């Protein structure tokens, strides 16, 4: 009323009308912006739907993905910890019983890195190490001056170093380390029988080549540090030996430097990304191998290089899904595009399972036991059963958890039975951890021969100087 007297009724009405218009305009503007944001999104601010999901995730911790999750059994463990600490309180003081309990102890509270982090020089292109051009000469000179470290330990038998490894930190999955332990026992058994030396790696030599590429700097370093080794046998930690009696046919590879399981047509003609497998391969200790490692490495450095290389590989190779560059696809690409450079010394073996994809093998173990015998190494009794995609150490694999772990147990027992039969035992079943006696003790143990002849096999016999 006061305002009306100041400016006049007519003007007041006009101002009020303008204000109304203004309000309506502003409200419509807000509405439009909100609807547009809801539909199109606003760059990095995302859509309201994404906001909502973020808030929901923050408040209600979402965990699983379909059929692939391996979680810490937090609620169960907490319950267990409670019941154990409750019962322990009756015997000792509560503070010490908790300090002595391994349940829910986080190892990361102990681990500590000292010293500066090594940062690679971004201006320099990546290289595995200083280029060496005369490795064959250097090595043969060394072997001549060191006759006590021959590179051949038998007439046809080269000195072999089996290399495998895993992360220095505990697995994310609570049973992952147990399966790694079983896997290493399996390899120890095969290597003891066949006179193969072992190297278990738990160190990341080059932070840029992390993940599946970590084997490249390691292999190079081992080749150069062990000139007495003739063949380096890389084997993934998720690959198990299932034929303890099969000896690799070394004479077949006397003119080859790189032996992988695969098919020539699938690599050179089809460029199929699973035409070969780099989970289990043999590499000769020579200049050629150093050169192929140098040619293999460039797609490896993590970050932009690996991402871009992954796109090239997906485009060029048949059947490859979209993800960063991996060493296997890079090798297929390298061989397919530079066949004239490398092909003559690469042997793609498929007469036996130097690598055997587990999916087609694990269900047939009973059938194999019934119809065949160890020593064949092929589809009838595979040398290696390789659990590609299972990733027992991580939280997420490509296959259902139950199938992977149960089948790994079966494959382990299948191989272990061949070891136990040397001593007169076998597992009660392929799924069982318990063993039973199959051969009675005798007072003349040396008269007894084990069925497979693995106690004193020919491939372990020492070279006799005549």
């Amino acid at each position, binding site marked *: 009323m006061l305002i009306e007297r100041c400016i006049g009724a007519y003007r007041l009405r006009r101002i009020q009308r303008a204000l109304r218009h203004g309000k309506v305009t502003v409200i419509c503007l807000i509405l439009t912006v909100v609807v547009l944001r809801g539909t199109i999104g606003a760059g990095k601010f995302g859509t309201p*739907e994404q906001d909502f999901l973020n808030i929901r995730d923050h408040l209600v911790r979402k965990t699983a993905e379909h059929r692939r999750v391996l979680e810490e059994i937090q609620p169960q463990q907490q319950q267990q910890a409670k019941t154990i600490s409750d019962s322990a309180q009756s015997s000792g003081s509560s503070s010490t019983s908790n300090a002595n309990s391994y349940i829910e102890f986080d190892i990361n509270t102990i681990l500590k890195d000292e010293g500066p982090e090594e940062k690679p020089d971004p201006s320099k292109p990546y290289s595995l190490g200083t280029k060496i051009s005369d490795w064959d000469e250097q090595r043969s000179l060394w072997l001549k001056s060191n006759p006590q470290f021959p590179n051949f330990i038998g007439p046809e038998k080269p000195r072999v170093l089996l290399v495998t490894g895993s992360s220095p930190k505990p697995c994310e999955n609570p049973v992952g380390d147990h399966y790694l332990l079983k896997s290493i026992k399996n390899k120890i058994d095969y290597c003891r029988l066949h006179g193969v030396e072992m190297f278990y790696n738990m160190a990341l030599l080059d932070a840029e080549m992390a993940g599946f590429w970590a084997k490249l700097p390691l292999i190079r370093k081992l080749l150069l540090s062990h000139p007495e080794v003739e063949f380096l046998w890389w084997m993934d930690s998720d690959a198990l030996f299932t034929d303890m009696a099969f000896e690799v046919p070394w004479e077949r590879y006397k003119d080859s430097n790189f032996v992988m399981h695969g098919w020539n047509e699938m690599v050179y003609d089809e460029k199929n990304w699973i035409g070969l497998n780099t989970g289990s391969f043999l590499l000769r200790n020579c200049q050629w191998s150093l050169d192929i490692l140098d040619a293999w490495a460039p797609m490896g450095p993590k970050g932009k290089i690996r991402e871009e290389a992954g796109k090239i590989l997906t485009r060029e190779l048949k059947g490859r899904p979209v993800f960063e560059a991996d060493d296997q696809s890079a090798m297929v690409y390298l061989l397919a595009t530079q066949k004239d450079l490398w092909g003559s010394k690469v042997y793609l073996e498929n007469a036996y399972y130097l690598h055997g994809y587990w999916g087609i093998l694990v269900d047939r173990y009973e059938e194999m036991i019934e119809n065949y015998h160890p020593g064949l190494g092929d589809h009838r009794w595979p040398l290696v059963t390789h659990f590609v995609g299972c990733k027992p150490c991580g939280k997420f694999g490509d296959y259902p958890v139950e199938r992977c772990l149960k089948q790994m147990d079966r494959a382990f027992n299948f191989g272990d039975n061949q070891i136990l039969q040397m001593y007169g035992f076998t597992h009660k079943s392929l799924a069982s951890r318990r063993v039973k006696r199959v051969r009675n003790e005798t007072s003349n143990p040396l008269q007894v021969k084990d069925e497979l002849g693995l106690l004193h096999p020919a491939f372990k016999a020492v070279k006799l100087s005549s």
Partner: protein
Amino acid sequence: MGKDAFTPQKRVTSGSLPTTTTNGGGKYLPGRVVPRGRQIKKTFNNIRITILCGFVTILVLRGTIGVGNLGSPDVDAVDQSIIEETNRILAEIRSDSDPTDTEQPPDAEINPNVTYTLGPKIENWDFSRKNWLESNPEFPNHVNGKPRILLLTGSPPNPCDNPIGDHYLLKAVKNKIDYCRIHGIEIVYNMAHLDKELAGYWAKLPMIRRLMLSHPEVEWIWWMDSDALFTDMVFEIPLSKYTNHNLVIHGYPDLLFEQKSWIALNTGSFLFRNCQWSLDLLDAWAPMGPKGSIRDEAGKILTANLKGRPAFEADDQSALIYLLMSQKGQWMDRVFIENSYYLHGYWAGLVDRYEEMIEKYHPGLGDERWPFVTHFVGCKPCGSYGDYPVERCLRSMERAFNFADNQVLKLYGFSHRGLLSPKIRRTRNETVMPLEYVDQFDIRRAKH
């Protein structure tokens, strides 16, 4: 949302319904009665506006929350059931149950009146073994001038009570693989209970016997606990010292004979020669082992006779001490109680001194200056509870592991970034002549 815009207008028009959305309102006459037809039209207009507003609201809400939320209760239920299934699988794997448990009836307990035996008595093992070695010259008992040694170790077949236990078992195996590769020793990792009567710490006895009889080419069998780590990668056991002995074990003779202490010897790391004497000792050692009433009763005898022993069932270490004490004349002339180097080194007095050792001494000594073996007795990382605080145990185990690993990595030009770090750093640049470092740093070459 649209309705809010109209309230000012509503107030101004003193009660009558608004007419249009955009038009500010137009002329009005306060106090005038609105005719009925107009009222109906106004109602329809209002309804139209309401529907329009409702439509806009839904549109905006859809943009905000999205339609994907329509199935959310089901998705959560599916996820929950998958988590439960995975937990069930993991619990099954980590339990002690076995698919064959239902197949066979439980075996009857052993007859306590009959002395337990490891197997049929073997009388002439030395003779049989010598014959075998002569007829099989391609499997000699000496390799590269050294007697053939077989390292035996092991762990239970099921996962540890907690994941960190399995991780340290894995690290311990790697540590043993490294030492044995450098020194040309073969490893047998046992994960089977060969004799269910002798389970637990007694399980090594049947396995040692079995390996001796199956591998006559092996001269020495070296048992090592899974919680013992090599910390001197250069030191080699001086086997020439033991040509007249058949059992090499770490301990203290005064603790054994004068004080009769239950920790006079340590059976976490010892060597047995492959001979008749060893088979006889194993046969004499085993009777206190069978689980159940025998082991419990034996435990009482041991606690009564050994100084400082707590009350619990018979363990292999106490039983061996009691055996050697009471049958001294029969066995002791062939037993070498070693304490000039740490064939077994109790961890508590050693792990804090690693930095001092690195500064003052060098590998190859094997004794208190640079211990050969650091043995983590009492830590029990595979169980749920240890005898010491967990943090101390795991920290010390990590330090011991890295202390040893540094000696292995030296050949490759790397070292850990601290004794508690899993990461490594370069200590030597790459070179075009790697073999000069091989000559310098390879432990095997240094000895020859």
